[in-house]
């Protein structure tokens, strides 16, 4: 006979009253995810080199070419960025490295932040235009 793990009934029902076990914290979910978020990203200047805020390597775990190439493209659009490239050091390591070198006018961290924000607003823009096009198509073709 195979041992079947018990099915816990109603253990995590999403109702209003389950907020009471998150007593002292207004937004427990965000705090939980912060804990995980902490280890996703690292950044450092190259070992042995002079500490330089203009050139840095960012190491992101759990991401691949999907984000790497898109982010590289967006960061390179910034005229203050002199160099940006990404690599996945080893296929069996779930890790993505992004190298940024900038001019004196900004820092690598700021270039990274701007890149992420630009990519976000690009997504929002595509979403918005796609939504409109989709709605117009539905109206034109009487799809409810």
């Amino acid at each position, binding site marked *: 006979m195979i041992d079947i793990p018990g099915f816990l009934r109603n253990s995590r029902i999403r109702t209003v009253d389950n907020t009471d076990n998150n007593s002292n914290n207004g937004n427990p979910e965000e705090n939980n995810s912060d804990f995980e978020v902490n280890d*996703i990203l690292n950044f450092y200047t190259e070992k042995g080199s002079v500490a330089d805020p203009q050139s840095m390597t960012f190491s992101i775990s759990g991401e691949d070419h999907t984000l790497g190439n898109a982010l590289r493209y967006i960061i390179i659009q910034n005229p203050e960025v002199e160099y940006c490239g990404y690599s996945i050091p080893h296929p069996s390591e779930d890790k993505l490295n992004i190298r940024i070198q900038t001019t004196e006018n900004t820092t690598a961290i700021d270039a990274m932040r701007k890149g992420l924000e630009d990519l976000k607003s690009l997504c929002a823009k595509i979403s918005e235009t796609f939504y409109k096009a989709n709605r117009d198509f539905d109206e034109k073709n009487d799809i409810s």
Partner: protein
Amino acid sequence: MKKSKRASTARDHLEVLQTRVVVERDNVSSISSSDFPFHTSNRYPNHDLAEKSRNKIIVAIEKKSQYDMEFDIIGIDASIANALRRIMIAEVPTMAIEKVFIYDNTSIVQDEVLAHRLGLIPIKADPDEFDFKQSTEHPTDQNTIVFKLKQECKRNPKTSVDEKGPLYINHNVYSIALIWEPKGDQAERFKDVTIGPVHDDILIAQMRPGQKIELEAHCEKGCGKEHAKWSPVATASYRLMPEIILKEEITGDLADKFASCFASGVVEVENKMVDGELKKVAKVVNSRLDTVSREVLRHKEFEGKVQLTRIRDHFIFRVESTGILDSEKIVFDSLQILSSKCTMLLKALDIKLKEKEETETSQNNENAMELDA
């Protein structure tokens, strides 16, 4: 006059290189985008292009049914298009059978093969209603859907050997045999929707009289990058819009030959008045249908008269759903996921910076204390 014409062709040539991928007889040229600051052939040298490129995006829906759509996104880079395609395939979550508890299986399909086949059946259930189940977590009504399958094959008593008719009862096990067993509040939560296989007629196994399958299957939420069974799409792909540039008019019998070099519907031959006489003239009417077979480049008579290109920022997407999610939802989800990756990294960046600052100030304090001592 002659001079200005030459200048305009030079400009045309430059524009082709900036905006088109050129398909030649045996190679492809002008492949990479030059849309970044300080590139020599960039149209806007040293501008911040992120904002510029955002404002010229066009989306057009070409064909659409609930589970299949073709649409164009114009004005984005290949890296963004590819990110969306990759997310649609590998990172938009769905529900699929992940654990199978086999009570009885006397069919010739081995347990592991049976479990694998069950996993690949698309399960119609809204993934937004469920949580990811961590390996340490127990199955709950928030992260698991349970199906039962019980089927036994018997000889059909009404049919003797010589007579025509089905010999066996329950001899094919189809996906419709998977019976959803609502747990916890699921019966209440999903009273308006049906949870079950997308298709009822997927053949899971075949049996002979006396054989029996009895099992319990647990569906979990997952992503295509872990296993393809969670992928919400049958295909998600893009191609660049083909464009056929005619450098000079192709007339007469050549026009017919020209048209026959392309897929039907791409080039049409029109009758046109040229210098007072009626002539056949080839005209490109729908380059979207072109397969870019390069057949036209094999013929000497068209040399220099035609250029095959693809528009570098015009992506024709095709998203075909497995029937779990509407295809438009898959597109929206993929954009949402790409955006949330950025949000998460921005957050991580802030946390790291704060941490660094804190360690630096504490180090400074220590140094100051040492000096005091």
